[in-house]
């Protein structure tokens, strides 16, 4: 993975010192809370319901075991012994103290991590496919370009006071595991007319109260032009994006208001001036970054591993876990493992310091010392030899990390909700826990099959409920929590926004409603159909009927 050179080190170290000064000015009263707010937000420090919250960037989800151990250390020393992995591949700490925030950043800097631009109206942490570099369908590794974008966007002098936050995601594979079409800019690596790799550029995706699927504004962009084209998009947005209403300030609203053709023309005109300037990417800089993401030293081993096959047969629990949490690797004899952070009754995305350390140890033992965080709030060990899978599974099991539900109904994405968040209208975590318990039976879960369930505690949609196959949105009606349900959303290369089924459900009815939806699907599906397949075939009507029949 990428390693800082002296320049990267200097920027991060100086940024911590700068922030330490800002905190000192706040604590001494030189800065009011209003003046301090934008400064702390540029370093990921929010003021939540009960305390400050610090969001630490995990660029495109990549972590070394050493970094993971540092995250565990921070959780133990400065928080209550755990951290929360987020849908943007970051980690959040819910209980840091203001006077220790700079100390935390100092600790993180020792392992080449920071909290720069994890909030505020800035270009946020860039995200990418968690299977980057190991997926069989990949055109080129998206992390190379995500890292290049990370550097360009860091402390960008022109784009640090944008109309609103700005999110960029990159996929290197045709099957989109990074939900790029729900981002302000989505970048897909693709082959050009002469076989060379470049990018298709999508703009204006987003969630929140106005969910929009991003639109393609350039079918093919050569690599050298990546940054100049991004700068052109951002410059158009920075000048024309609405600043009169924060709910209309994202780039999706600008694109919709002026139309994608006009927007594209403005970007292309701006780019005409920029493309041959200092932002043109030299081949040797791309090569320099690319070298950091070279494949690890895989062994030349057979794809068939008899001892693995026999374990599958003799240990059904292991077999179940392999069935849901293990994915094919591009190299024979290796496998990609998803470590579920969704145990029954647990808080989606939470990990204790002990679990973080255990996973770091397992990464060292079995996966070249590297891990990834996924937008589904799980972790990935990307390079496991098939012959090591059983030992890995045992190691995970010793720490409660063997939940065999990746991609299944209880692999729920949930935001912190009203339990932590000052924006929330309703609780998310207790609903996720109750659904997890209701669908705890593994045979039933496996029978239901691949499905995504997302629960957001407010319209800001941090848990991406619009693009969940089943989406749950917490709303407040006269002081009581209600839950609105959407169906048919998806966040892959065929991104769709879910349809609202009808009136919201009360706290006591929402879990029953989910069960009714699942039962309706099971009754309607044909052989081999997943939930989203069936939904796309039959539409909303049958679900609406069963959900509201008894009312």
């Amino acid at each position, binding site marked *: 993975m990428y390693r800082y050179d002296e320049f990267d080190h200097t920027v991060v170290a100086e940024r911590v010192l700068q922030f330490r000064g800002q905190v000192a000015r706040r604590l001494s009263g030189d800065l009011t809370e209003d003046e301090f707010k934008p400064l702390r937000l540029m370093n990921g420090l929010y003021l939540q319901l009960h305390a400050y919250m610090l969001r630490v960037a995990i660029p495109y989800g990549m972590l070394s075991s*050493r970094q993971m151990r540092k995250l565990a250390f921070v959780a133990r020393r400065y928080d209550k012994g755990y951290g929360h992995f987020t849908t943007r591949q970051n980690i959040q700490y819910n209980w840091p103290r203001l006077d220790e925030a700079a100390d935390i950043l100092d600790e993180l800097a020792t392992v080449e991590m920071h909290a720069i631009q994890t909030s505020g109206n800035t270009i946020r942490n860039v995200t990418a496919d968690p299977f980057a570099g190991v997926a069989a369908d990949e055109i080129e590794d998206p992390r190379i370009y995500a890292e290049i974008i990370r550097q360009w966007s860091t402390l960008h002098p022109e784009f640090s006071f944008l109309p609103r936050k700005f999110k960029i995601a990159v996929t290197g594979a045709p099957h989109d595991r990074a939900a790029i079409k729900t981002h302000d800019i989505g970048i897909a690596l693709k082959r050009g007319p002469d076989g060379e790799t470049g990018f298709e550029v999508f703009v204006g995706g987003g969630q929140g109260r106005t969910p929009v699927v991003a639109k393609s504004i350039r079918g093919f962009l050569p690599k050298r032009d990546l940054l100049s084209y991004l700068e052109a998009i951002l410059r158009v947005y920075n000048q024309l994006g609405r600043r009169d209403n924060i709910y209309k300030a994202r780039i999706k609203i600008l694109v919709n208001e002026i139309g994608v053709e006009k927007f594209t023309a403005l970007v292309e005109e701006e780019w005409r001036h920029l493309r041959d300037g200092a932002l043109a990417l030299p081949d040797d800089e791309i090569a320099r970054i690319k070298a950091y993401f070279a494949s690890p030293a895989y062994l030349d081993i057979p794809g068939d591993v008899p001892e693995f096959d026999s374990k599958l047969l003799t240990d059904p629990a292991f077999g179940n876990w392999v069935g849901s949490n293990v994915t094919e690797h591009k190299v024979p004899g290796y496998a990609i493992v998803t470590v579920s952070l969704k145990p029954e009754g647990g808080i989606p995305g939470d990990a204790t310091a002990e679990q973080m350390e255990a996973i770091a140890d397992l990464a060292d033992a079995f996966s070249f010392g590297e891990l990834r965080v996924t937008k589904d709030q799980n972790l990935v060990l990307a390079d496991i030899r098939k012959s090591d899978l059983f030992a890995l599974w045992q190691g995970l099991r010793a720490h409660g990390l063997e939940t065999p539900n990746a991609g299944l109904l209880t692999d729920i994405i949930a935001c912190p909700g009203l339990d932590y968040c000052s924006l929330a209208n309703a609780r998310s975590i207790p609903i996720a826990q109750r659904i997890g318990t209701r669908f705890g039976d593994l045979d039933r879960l496996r029978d239901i099959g691949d499905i995504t369930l997302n629960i957001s505690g407010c319209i800001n949609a941090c848990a991406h409920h619009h693009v969940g196959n089943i989406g749950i949105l917490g709303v407040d009606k006269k002081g009581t929590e209600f839950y609105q349900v959407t169906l048919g959303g998806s966040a892959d290369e065929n991104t769709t926004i879910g349809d609202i089924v009808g009136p919201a459900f009360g706290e006591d009815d929402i879990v029953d409603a989910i069960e009714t939806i699942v039962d309706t699907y099971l009754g309607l599906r044909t052989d081999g159909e997943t939930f989203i397949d069936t939904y796309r075939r039959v539409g909303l009507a049958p679900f609406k009927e069963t959900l509201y029949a008894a009312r």
Partner: protein
Amino acid sequence: MPLAKDGQLIDDPWTLVADGAVPPAEGALLVSYATWTEHRDALSRRNAPLGIRLDSDQSPALIADDLDRFDLIALDIPVFKDGRAYSYARLLRERYGYAKELRAVGNVLRDQYHFLHRCGFDTFEVATDEAADAWWEALSEISHAYQPAADARRPILALRQARTEHSAPPRPDTATVAAGWAY
């Protein structure tokens, strides 16, 4: 309001002409875009310095053809989080080649000096006399920049390229990268 340049308070010789007023014949005048369009001919005939002050919703593209008439362009930042002036400043410096005084006015805060300077501003309207004191500290807090902008800093990419020309390229070897963090 006090005016600062390079961390020093400086005199402000410019007289701001109120909208609707007839510009006086003498003295260095700072006019709004509305006044400029209304009194364009008279203002162009004067033999005294002329400056223009643009609101945050007025792109410098509006005056791109007239830039040689202005000795000062002031860009308003009505509230610190309105970041349009950063793009306007870079366009003026880098696209239109404007080389005279570029002033940030409005809600200009110490923690913005660095980015404003990088985007091409050289004078700053500040809230208090003391606000200018932090200038050099603000500019030196972060010593390297990843991006090319309107200032003279060489971006990190250029520094890396220069380093590569003088020594063997510091490429990580695959085995070291694969071993991760085992040092």
